[in-house]
């Protein structure tokens, strides 16, 4: 085991920033008031809540009263999709989405299918892109919702959201985007992009886990998600997670405040890594769009290798990364995203996702590039398929 620890899995989660934690701390102890209470410390909590709401709204070009806090990105996705579906059932029962959505969207859609809704899962091209034309062609008189992710969590591909939003608005269909990977990473403006609903999650941009938000454009017909008290204007009952929401507000303010500088650095790291992997390791394939991708996302398939072994060996070398077929306790299937962009099963299994973050340095990439080619070579030496190919090549 090595002492070195390099975290290259920022798409999974990020550490809470020190300033964010400091902003949160008082709300656990001295400022513990319930935001619904009328006395001073209650009002203090309420004030903090509304300030956080303003910050979220400002970050995505929305109005404050269009922001509703949730307990996660998954909750925001579920609320948006089920809430719009149930509320607009008399209008139609058709939903359009893509084959590469996060499970929070896909499984919510599958659930709605069991409830009598019809769902179109649009295919994507080899780069993971869906086009506005595809969306337009799929719209029917019964279509009530289009839900398409802003940027993909695995391959980083960024969808033409503004174009899709335009189509949706013209056809009068609600447009939801799961922007969990995008918020805090790329510029978003819900009104320019004609977005009606947008999900985001705090822990993807250096905020705490367990808090997210759903943007709901004013006038969108949507059922309440949790029934109970009058919090979040009666639409999402639950005593507010004030400290978490304060953290979300602080984190989104910081993340969106210096997007350009941050991205310049992340893109440089991404490009260097992509170039070096392609140069130093044979039989590799970059997954996702070459340029239209998240600043910190690198996703490669290594032929003749199981992603599982690769991750373990990287872990032993102190590098935290992820694969297209993470095997934690349940699922073993190769990633639906990699299959959707046309990778065969065996290649999808040999995939590696590296996602850079602010604290990563060029030295981290030096170390990665020292270790990764070695590990890939070692694993390939064990593969009879690779042996045959290597022999043919010499």
């Amino acid at each position: 085991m090595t002492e070195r620890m390099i975290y290259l899995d920022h798409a999974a989660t990020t550490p809470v920033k020190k300033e964010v934690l400091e902003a949160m701390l008082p709300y656990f102890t001295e400022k513990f008031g319930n935001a619904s209470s009328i006395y001073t410390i209650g009002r203090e909590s309420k004030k903090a809540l509304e300030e956080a709401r303003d910050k979220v709204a400002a970050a995505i070009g929305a109005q404050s009263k269009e922001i509703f806090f949730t307990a996660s990105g998954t909750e925001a996705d579920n609320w948006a999709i089920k809430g719009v579906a149930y509320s607009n059932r008399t209008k139609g029962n058709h939903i359009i989405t893509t084959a590469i959505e996060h499970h929070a969207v896909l499984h919510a859609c599958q659930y709605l299918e069991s409830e009598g809704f019809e769902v179109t899962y649009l295919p994507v091209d080899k780069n993971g892109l869906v086009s506005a034309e595809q969306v337009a062609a799929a719209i029917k008189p019964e279509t009530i919702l289009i839900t398409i992710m802003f940027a993909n969590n695995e391959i980083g591909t960024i969808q033409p959201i503004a174009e899709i939003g335009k189509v949706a608005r013209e056809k009068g269909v609600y447009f939801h985007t799961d922007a969990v990977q995008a918020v805090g990473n790329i510029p978003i403006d819900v009104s320019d992009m004609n977005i009606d609903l947008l999900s985001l999650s705090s822990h993807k941009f250096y905020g705490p886990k367990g808090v997210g938000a759903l943007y709901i454009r004013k006038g969108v017909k949507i059922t309440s998600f949790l029934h109970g008290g009058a919090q979040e204007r009666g639409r999402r009952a639950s005593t507010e997670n004030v400290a978490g929401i304060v953290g979300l507000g602080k984190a989104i303010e910081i993340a969106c405040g210096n997007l350009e500088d941050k991205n310049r650095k992340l893109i440089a790291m991404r490009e260097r890594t992509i170039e070096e992997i392609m140069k130093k390791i044979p039989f590799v394939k970059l997954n996702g769009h070459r340029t239209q991708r998240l600043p910190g996302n690198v996703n490669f398939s290594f032929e003749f290798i199981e992603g599982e072994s690769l991750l373990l060996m990287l872990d032993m070398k102190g590098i935290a990364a992820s694969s297209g077929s993470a095997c934690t306790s349940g699922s073993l299937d190769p990633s639906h995203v990699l299959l959707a962009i046309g990778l065969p099963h065996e290649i999808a299994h040999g995939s590696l996702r590296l996602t850079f973050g602010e604290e990563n340095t060029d030295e981290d990439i030096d170390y990665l590039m020292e270790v990764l080619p070695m590990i890939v070579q070692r694993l390939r030496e064990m593969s009879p398929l690779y042996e045959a190919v290597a022999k043919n090549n010499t």
Partner: protein
Amino acid sequence: MLGMSGGVDSSVAAAILLEQGFEVIGVTMQIWPDIVEDKQKSEGGCCSLSAVDDARRVADKLGIPYYVLNFKDVFREKVIDYFKDEYLKGRTPNPCIACNRHVKFDAMLKKASSMGLDYVGTGHYAQIGYDEKLKRYLLRKSVTATKDQTYALYNLNQEQLSRILMPIGSYTKDKVREIAGKIGLCVAGKPDSQEICFVEDNDYGRFIRENTDYEIAPGDFVDTRGNILGRHKGIVHYTVGQRKGLGISFGKPMYVVEIDVQRNRVVLGDDSEVFSNALIAEDINFISIDSLKEPQRVKAKIRYSAKEADAEVIPLEDGCVQVVFDAPQRAVTPGQSVVFYDGDIVVGGGVIKNPI
């Protein structure tokens, strides 16, 4: 790389290996195919989801890295498909032997090597050691005789044995419990599972019926002279020596003595007809000797639960062996393995082709 189930045995194995100075990485194999019921997946056997949770907890307690590794494809091909095929051929398979041979000590061992790990360890009750005189690795029964699992491990070859560690085999049951207590494990733990891990409620007939395209047709029960005695539900539901569940009463105890796939018949006989004097075994592996040149006296065990019997193993020209028992043996079953012992040393073993 230590295979961990979250149970006492593999957890204690982890503790012992750590104490012996090994750097231990815990893994649980993920082997469940989609056809397996959710209930079985979450609760059943050594590789279930609850096993994953338990093993992870033990690994955390011991401070070792822990991973879940995917062995789903190899398990399906080498264990489940083999299991179904054998029953459809009228034989009675032993899936644990297949799992040890192809999954734990082949696929897992290869995985370990590819990751640069020197050994694979397990919580099996067996002992492995190198004999300087013979210049061979030997497999011996565990110190705790009642727990011995060497019957299911006779397929190991010298290369494999040189890279496998089974640390608890040389500890007594009390000592294992004591170590378990010391590392804070619940000693009562889970009951030992003797059932087939991927088959719900041990109803293997139903499992095969639901997971094969072959038609499982009813046929005739006949006696050893060919007289029809009644109808059976399909050959996969029977094993040699079986008495219960035949569905007919004959006025005297009757046993399955043979399964005739060609004619889809199940042959029944009385107590005397279920005994055999000898058998032919195929797919032979020897451990303590390189090969069998001349007949050798051994103790032979024909089922996991069978008592050892005095016998002579005789090499045949085609690589098979003939095993002649001093006293007739009950229910010699094609598909099961026969394992040969010399004292506590495993000489070798093979798969029973047919009784004689």
